[in-house]
């Protein structure tokens, strides 16, 4: 057979970065598994998103806010003391915790809020786990004068009080969700219920690379700024790409954001770190890829923690942001094709890494990225000194000091 396609289209066809397909699928994962009531809204969103992408004015507006409001680009920090302590590969931190609101979440929120405004929506609903996405969403709603309702599991409201207060200060209504275990999964259900009941004026601002198409793609695109910058910065610092990139995964938006620009760089190993909770085989884990199997929840097919009858199980993690029984569909696909590797880190290991990072680098990481760091601490010593690891430090840990104090037996 003669290959008649142009070099560009054939290179795209061979690219791992061209997904999803028109059905919103990454391999068998993704899709649009929602009630009919929502389907027209997803088409409308898809159209609005494509139109925004194609409009240079949109890009210009987003760049303006990313630079002057979010504070991008975020630095790439050579963690010299940690590197010395681990005695192996050079460890770099992508400092997403320095963004306004203290995490990578604002990258996506800023993009989506501009889309929502173009669609003429006046009310925003969102789900949140650790509260980072909720705070980011409440922040842009304050900035643009939009009504904001945040759904948060009652358990998470309890363990993330500072973020709840922050959202209140920003003028958002925080609705605690008592269904289920009162964590992110239940907040997601409730946000979807709100959306379907208020479609005329309401935009559902999804915080991670999950949900029905086009959310996984759109959130990934807005988060890819992390990887794009990392590529430039590491090339400038080291004259080459890193050997390994590590990121923690709940739904997987910070990981997808740093992975995606590197998907076609086969020599860069990508490692996603799931929360193993009490241990991968403890039954109390949030490791959807390691311990789940494919199924359908919250609008997409992906790896899910579920029983043999297809009932979704409660996830468990010390970190509210990782406490989710699913994972973004693109990660499920990257796992199945072997492009990325997914490992587990326990609550205990994350707590240890949290303290090491604080002590050696003077950076208090969010418990979410402490999971990533714990894995870096396992692999860096086994690597050569001229090898390079980049860890996505996706959020700062101020919000977690109460949880950490509690686990260390300190009363604040």
């Amino acid at each position, binding site marked *: 057979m003669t290959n008649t396609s142009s070099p560009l289209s054939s290179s795209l066809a061979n690219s791992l970065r061209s997904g999803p397909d028109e059905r919103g699928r990454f391999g068998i994962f993704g899709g649009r598994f*929602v009630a009919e009531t929502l*389907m027209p809204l997803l088409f409308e969103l898809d159209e609005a998103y494509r139109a925004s992408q194609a409009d240079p004015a949109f890009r210009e507006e987003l760049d303006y806010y990313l630079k002057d409001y979010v504070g991008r680009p975020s630095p790439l920090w050579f963690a010299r003391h940690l590197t010395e302590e681990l005695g192996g590969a050079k460890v770099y931190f992508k400092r997403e915790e320095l963004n306004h609101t203290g995490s990578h979440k604002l990258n996506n929120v800023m993009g989506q809020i501009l889309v929502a405004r173009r669609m003429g929506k006046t009310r925003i609903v969102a789900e949140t786990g650790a509260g980072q996405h909720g705070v980011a969403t409440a922040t842009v709603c304050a900035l643009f004068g939009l009504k904001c309702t945040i759904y948060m599991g009652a358990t998470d409201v309890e363990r993330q009080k500072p973020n709840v207060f922050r959202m209140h200060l920003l003028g958002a209504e925080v609705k605690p969700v008592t269904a289920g275990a009162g964590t992110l999964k239940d907040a997601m259900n409730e946000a979807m*219920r709100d959306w379907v009941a208020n479609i005329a004026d309401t935009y559902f601002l999804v915080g991670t690379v999950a949900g029905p198409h086009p959310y996984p793609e759109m959130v990934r695109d807005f988060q890819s700024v992390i990887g794009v910058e990392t590529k430039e910065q590491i090339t400038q610092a080291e004259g080459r790409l890193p050997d390994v990139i590590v990121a923690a995964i709940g739904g997987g938006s910070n990981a997808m954001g740093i992975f995606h620009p590197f998907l076609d760089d086969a020599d860069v190993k990508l490692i996603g770190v799931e929360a193993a909770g009490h241990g991968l085989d403890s039954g109390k884990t949030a490791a959807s890829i390691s311990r789940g199997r494919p*199924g*359908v929840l*919250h609008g997409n097919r992906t790896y899910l923690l579920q029983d043999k009858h297809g*009932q979704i199980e409660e996830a468990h993690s010390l970190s509210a942001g990782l406490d989710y029984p699913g994972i973004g569909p693109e990660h499920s696909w990257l796992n199945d094709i072997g492009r990325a590797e997914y490992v587990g880190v326990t609550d205990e290991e994350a707590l240890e890494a949290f303290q090491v990072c604080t002590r050696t680098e003077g950076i208090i990481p969010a418990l979410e990225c402490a999971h990533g760091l714990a894995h870096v601490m396992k692999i860096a010593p086994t690597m050569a000194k001229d090898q390079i690891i980049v860890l996505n430090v996706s959020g700062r840990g101020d919000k977690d000091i109460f949880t950490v104090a509690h686990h260390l037996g300190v009363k604040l």
Partner: protein
Amino acid sequence: MSRIQTRFAALKQEGRGALIPYLQACDPDYDTSLELLRAMPAAGADLIEIGVPFSDPSADGPTIQAAALRGLKAGATLGLVLQMVRAFREMDSETPIVLMGYLNPIDSYGPAEFCFDAAQAGVDGIIVVDMPTEEADLLDAHAREAGLDIISLVAPTTSNSRLFHVLRDATGFVYYVSITGITGTSSASAADLEKALPRIREATSLPVAVGFGISTPEQARTASRIGDAAVVASALIKTMAGTLEDGRATGRTVPAVLAQLEELAAAVRA
């Protein structure tokens, strides 16, 4: 003709619409829900919808969420729901049974196996809330082969052109989700329905059942006249939940639901 076609044809002869009560399987336990299911036709059910409990019913309001949790606590599985239908069919071979639920338990059971087993058990149709037309190829061929109707859902947000797309290959009947919202919360007015139904009938000749937010006999009567059937779910479950003690069935549980069903049926027949 399928049981669903036969039933709607007979009702057309009678000159009235259908009443479709809903119960959640195993709510609050297997025996009680089976007893209720068996008694529903005599109390005026023309078709029956059985809810398949799911851990994350994201299109349902608080009443059905609670019912699903009770069902799961009582050990509900898709297999057990089919067993319930088989038990019902031992004494009723005419009343159409439609299962309503979410995709993941079916996906987990295996789409082909499920369609085969469901049809064998005497299920006539399935409503999968989170499986829109665009994803229906997962079940379509298997359902067709098994002689099972996949009941299409349409909503107020479904545009005229999309109605044609969604209903092109529809079978059984059409389920009109009459409000933009979750089950058992707000209700559509008669005027809303008067506007919506002609739009739907343009796109299909199948009977149209109206559901979501129908709770009173008056609403059931209106919906069954403007449409071809009224689905009543949360209102019946609320009544049932009110009879439970510590989450368990009492002597009042089945009679209370049946009494309400009789009232609804009388209104639909009036």
